[in-house]
């Protein structure tokens, strides 16, 4: 039996099974980590119990993440005779209603639905919304729609077809296809994937290795996790193809131990692929043998750097080495090694199946394909989005993300995590691709995109990210170990109102030197948040230094909470109960006020104050309290 005959036999069985499922009502509950955090497992139980109670013949499956974080938990119901509908957020009551009204009876409960999955006469689809118009899903297309724990779901959607095709090609032809597609590494730097494979292919040394870098560690980034949890086979297929291209026999998936669900779903996916003969000896009857080992990292951010990652697998401390030599020639155990990000490998099956021309037709000339972003922060439609390269930040924030929460003013986007930068309003029309972001001082990074509004202090944002990189520095090289610490100390002083204008010059100089002088990419990119905020938001730094004022009212040392008597009500005292330090007291006229010396600026009173009063406000610079009896304070305790 030929490779393609073997594949078609496997696929045919899968298609038959999925067709049978489609004959019955099918409930899909998104139980990736994001869904679980929102209570998806409870919803899953409710569906199962209610279906039992009504003795319904329905299939209830767990699926991954569709990317609509703001609407979790998400449920898709496909009932024959109706368009498949997506509901969210679904609580227990909604779940019961959906069972009773839709599954038992025939009322699709449009009130709870977000969108339909396919065009119909009854209800709009995702493509009818601005987000759907701009989004172009390739590697997220099946996420949330297939059961990641059942390989047949993936097979029925042409899964592993690219592998079957590749196994009948020459290995170098595979590399040429990837080179021709101009696929660039999605881990951050955007290095051409085909060139990396070619170098490894040509390098001498045996055995060769392929490694999938799933050590996603940026604060606020969750793209890789969602893909691993939602469509692990897509990645595994990409990894096998990469291995075939460079003729490696062993692959590793380096995944964080903090992603237990991803690890579990990967394990299951790998064992199912082995059972089907898609992994292991003589894949699909060919001469090619390959297997995958899951390696769980212990959560060090620096282990996402490829040389540190290799050392970690080798059992050594995760500390980067100077490059060159690059892993493509001297990698794991000194052997030629290809290391690719989860997203990069996930594109591979699609490119091999649909061709390099198809891939190049999406996105921009030098950055073809799509970009996957974890859209977070002060944006209405938070979630996981996939847009063609070249989409502008404005489209991403306002059309895909539906704009800023609570009608606040847009201030900046933090793009690319701790290695990226903050881009201001004037950059809103910047097209997102590897090169234009780098020019603007930011970075594609792994794809975190945090939207910041008027309430976010840019100095504090820079301090937050630098605090992260400083803590995650391995400490090997001078610039990163001591330079980031120097910068962090300066930034901390500024947010506490203790900075000087001279500090700003030192900060700028240090940032430039660390960027140029550090050993690895962690250090080389760590100053980016500081450099971009200094460039675009210098006035905020100066306000902190010159006036002791935090314009965004965020830096605790530079603000004071006060209650405006004219707005406060005699009839309300919720703020008093909310205060953990008993700093709020009732004045003789029954209005409330805050003892500044007791206030710890926890923000509770501001949240507690009912919207009709909004009497609690923050002011900056802080009010210096007049000292009256405080001199004798403490005596009573003795």
């Amino acid at each position, binding site marked *: 039996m030929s490779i393609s005959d073997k594949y078609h036999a496997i696929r045919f069985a899968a298609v038959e099974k999925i067709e049978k499922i489609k004959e019955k009502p099918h409930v899909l509950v998104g139980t990736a980590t994001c869904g679980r955090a929102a209570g998806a497992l409870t919803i899953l139980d409710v569906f199962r119990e209610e279906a039992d109670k009504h003795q319904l013949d329905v299939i209830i499956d767990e699926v991954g993440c569709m990317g609509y974080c703001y609407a979790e938990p998400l449920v898709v119901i496909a009932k024959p005779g109706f368009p498949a509908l997506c509901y969210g957020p679904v609580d227990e009551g909604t779940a019961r209603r959906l069972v009773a009204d839709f599954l038992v009876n025939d009322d699709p409960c449009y009130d709870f639905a977000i969108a339909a999955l396919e065009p119909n006469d009854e209800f709009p689809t995702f493509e009818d919304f601005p987000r759907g118009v701009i989004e172009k899903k390739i590697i997220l297309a099946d996420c949330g729609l297939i059961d990641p724990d059942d390989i047949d779901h993936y097979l029925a959607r042409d899964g592993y077809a690219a592998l079957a095709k590749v196994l009948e090609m020459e290995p170098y032809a595979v590399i040429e296809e990837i080179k021709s597609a101009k696929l660039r590494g999605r881990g951050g730097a955007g290095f051409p994937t085909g060139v990396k494979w070619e170098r490894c292919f040509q390098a001498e040394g045996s055995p060769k290795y392929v490694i999938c870098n799933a050590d996603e560690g940026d604060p606020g980034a969750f793209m890789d996790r969602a893909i691993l949890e939602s469509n692990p086979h897509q990645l595994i297929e990409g990894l096998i193809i990469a291995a075939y291209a460079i003729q490696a026999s062993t692959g590793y998936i380096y995944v964080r131990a903090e992603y237990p669900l991803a690890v579990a779903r990967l394990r299951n996916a790998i064992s199912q692929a082995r059972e089907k003969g898609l992994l292991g000896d003589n894949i699909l009857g060919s001469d090619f043998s390959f297997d995958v080992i899951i390696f769980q990292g212990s959560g*060090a951010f620096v282990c996402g750097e490829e040389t540190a990652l290799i050392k970690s697998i080798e059992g050594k*401390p995760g*500390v980067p*080495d*100077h490059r060159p030599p690059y892993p493509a020639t001297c990698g794991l155990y000194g052997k030629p090694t290809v290391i690719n990000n989860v997203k990069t490998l996930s594109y591979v099956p699609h490119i091999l199946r649909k061709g390099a021309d198809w891939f190049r037709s999406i996105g921009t000339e030098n950055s073809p394909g799509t970009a996957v972003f974890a859209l977070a922060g002060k944006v209405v439609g938070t979630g996981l989005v996939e847009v063609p390269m070249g989409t502008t930040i404005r489209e991403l924030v306002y059309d895909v993300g539906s704009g800023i929460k609570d009608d606040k003013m847009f201030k900046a986007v933090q793009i690319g995590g701790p290695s990226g930068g903050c881009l201001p309003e004037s950059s809103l029309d910047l097209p997102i691709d590897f090169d234009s972001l780098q020019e603007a001082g930011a970075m594609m990074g792994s794809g975190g995109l945090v939207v910041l509004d008027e309430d976010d202090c840019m100095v504090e944002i820079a301090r937050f990210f630098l605090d992260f990189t*400083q*803590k*995650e*520095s*391995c*400490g*090997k*090289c*001078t*610039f990163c*170990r*001591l*330079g980031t*610490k*120097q910068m962090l*100390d*300066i930034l901390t002083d500024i947010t506490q109102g203790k900075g000087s204008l001279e500090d700003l010059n*030192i900060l700028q*100089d*240090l940032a430039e*030197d660390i960027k*140029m*002088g*550090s*050993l690895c990419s962690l250090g080389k990119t760590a100053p980016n948040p500081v450099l971009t905020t200094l460039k675009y938001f210098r006035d905020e730094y100066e306000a902190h230094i010159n006036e002791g004022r935090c314009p965004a009212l965020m830096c605790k040392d530079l603000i004071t909470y006060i209650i405006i008597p004219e707005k406060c009500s005699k009839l309300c005292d919720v703020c008093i109960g909310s205060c953990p330090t008993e700093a709020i007291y009732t004045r003789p006229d029954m209005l409330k006020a805050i003892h500044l010396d007791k206030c710890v600026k926890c923000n509770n009173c501001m949240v507690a104050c009912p919207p009709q009063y909004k009497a609690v406000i923050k002011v900056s610079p802080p009010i210096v309290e007049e000292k009256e009896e405080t001199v004798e304070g403490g005596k009573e305790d003795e």
Partner: protein
Amino acid sequence: MSKVNITIDGQQYQVPAGEKLLWAALDCGVYIPHLCANKDKERPDASCRLCFVEIEGFDAPVTSCTQEVFEGMVVKTRTARVDRLVQTAFELLLSNHKLRCGKCPQNRQCELQKISRERKLKLKLTRLRPLLTEEKAVDDSTDVFIYDPNRCVLCGQCIWVDHKVVEVGAIGFINRGFKRKMGTFGDVPLAESRCTQCGECVKVCPVGALVFKEKTE
């Protein structure tokens, strides 16, 4: 052995092909600051970030300990960019270094002093903040030498000797980031570790972090 022609600061030299620029330059009598470099290491650490030079055709300064020489290479050891990087790296090291040279047993034999002399860099902090706010305890548990982590520049020379020359394996780098330091397994005093007190590590310490006791008296 085949040779290549290179130019350093306008002077032409013939150096062995395949050698790293740092060693080639030092052999030619051209000083380039360095702390972590070790000729016997297969893969340079490149961690002290002091040996920067500029090479014609390269868009940024490179560390000379990692850069192989090649025919026709044109090197400048002193440019504005190099001097700036070296100065910052040097000041950063000083900002975390116990700076009382007069009281240091290694006074006048210290590599930091040599760099300061060669590159006319001040041996005190003018621009940066002192990061050594609380001094770490000095380990004087062995009979032969003391270890003062407050003077350590993390060059790793002692660890190399311990692992690869005397093959004892008593010390290594422990902790991460700013807390990274040379230490024993579990950070126990050296006398309680498998240290044989052979003193070989002391001989390679470029600063006053590892010092023979006889010198401290």
